């Protein structure tokens, strides 16, 4: 079951990798293991924390609500926006600790994209959604508590 160990003098002892090759592999292993073990995120150096947090029945998501002229808010799926906007939820999660100008910059950026997809939108809400999965008969339901973090209004044409 162990790896094949060639006897000394066998032909496969010849042609061992040179210094550059050994340095390349050693460097790659150091760059892989140090961030990986310590937990540094400097893409492509990463900690490989894929799905490492155990999930529970509670989940916080950051969402966008489009508000029409009648004042009715409705959730907007970021997946329906162009590719450059689809991970905006991760930016929204950083906004509670950000300054007003940063919040407004993100809000207006998203409003522009949402208004292009959904004409008639007058305002945009950036919301925090604390959700909980609860049994509901034979099914599951999601209880949501939404809190608006920031709102911005479309500039009149």
């Amino acid at each position, binding site marked *: 079951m162990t*790896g094949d160990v060639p006897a000394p003098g066998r032909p496969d002892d010849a042609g061992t990798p040179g210094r550059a090759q050994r340095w390349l592999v050693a460097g790659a292993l150091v760059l892989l293991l140090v961030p990986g073990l310590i937990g540094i995120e400097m893409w492509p150096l990463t900690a*490989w*924390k*894929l799905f490492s947090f155990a*999930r529970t*029945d509670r989940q916080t998501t950051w969402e966008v609500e489009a508000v029409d002229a009648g004042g009715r808010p409705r959730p907007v799926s970021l997946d329906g926006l162009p*590719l450059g*906007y689809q991970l905006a939820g991760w930016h929204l999660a950083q906004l509670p600790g950000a300054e007003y100008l940063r919040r407004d910059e993100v809000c207006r*950026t998203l409003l522009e994209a949402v208004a292009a997809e959904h004409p008639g939108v007058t305002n945009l809400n950036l919301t925090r959604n604390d959700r909980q999965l609860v049994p509901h008969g034979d099914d599951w339901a999601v209880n949501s508590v939404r809190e608006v973090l920031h709102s911005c209004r479309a500039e009149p044409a």
Partner: protein
Amino acid sequence: MQGGAGVNRLGQKLDEALWGPETAVRLVFVQTGLALLIGIRVAFGPYHKLAGTPAALFDPVPILAFLGGMPGEGVIVALQVTGSLAAAAAVWRRYPRVSFGLAWFCYLVLAGLFSSRGKVMHNDLLLLWTAVPFLLAPVVVARGDTEPRREYGWPVRSSAVIAALIYGLAGYHKLGRSGLDWAFGDNLRYVLLWGPAYGPVRWGEAARWVAERWWAFKGASAFSLLFELTFPVVVFWRRLQPLYAVIALVLHGATWVFLGLDYWAWAATALLVFVDWPVVIASLTGPPSASAGRGA
């Protein structure tokens, strides 16, 4: 004395794991396969659609921190075309070191741009990392030479070590951040029930079926964690490599079906690096080659 002998044995095993012999045909097969995978990712990835990313949502990864914003579509398409042509040249072994290196570099930049939207993306990283040793792989390869040699083996072997460590690190952080609760708690149940938050679920009924049976979700999560944590053992017990590659294929397939997460590049990379395809093909199509019967 015994301790010294143990250290020597470990050193010898590590030496074999990283620099051990493989056949020329396996070296060419793996490098060609990696070039093909890189070419597919570069050519067909949705990178050109990143061009409209607004400045407020552009968060460059450290290696692209010099960029003031997302490059325009022309630049991204030029990278895709260049990377695709370079990958094609590497597949046909035209200037293999230069073409493979250029394809890898274009892929690194494109995947970096894809990850410059506020979230660390891992989808391309296994392929990028396992390709690193091949940047300096031998250029002149006698494909008719059926004798396993170290000069042909080290890129394949060290690439396998890198891939095994990546899986091991993924398990290490699950254990470190969540403990055994990741495997034996209700974690996977809620991952599956929350599923739609992660992507378009392919088979929601199956996800729900697993989520509502404790033995299924706990068994699956315990198996998954055990798989990742023990993956590095294939560095020394190479006969296990094809088995782990097949399990990786199943697990990545399951995350696609149940969660909508597309990790096909990981599954393909694992199959490519951990299975000795020339031996498999030879055993299916004709008399075994000289390297048949060796550990995979």
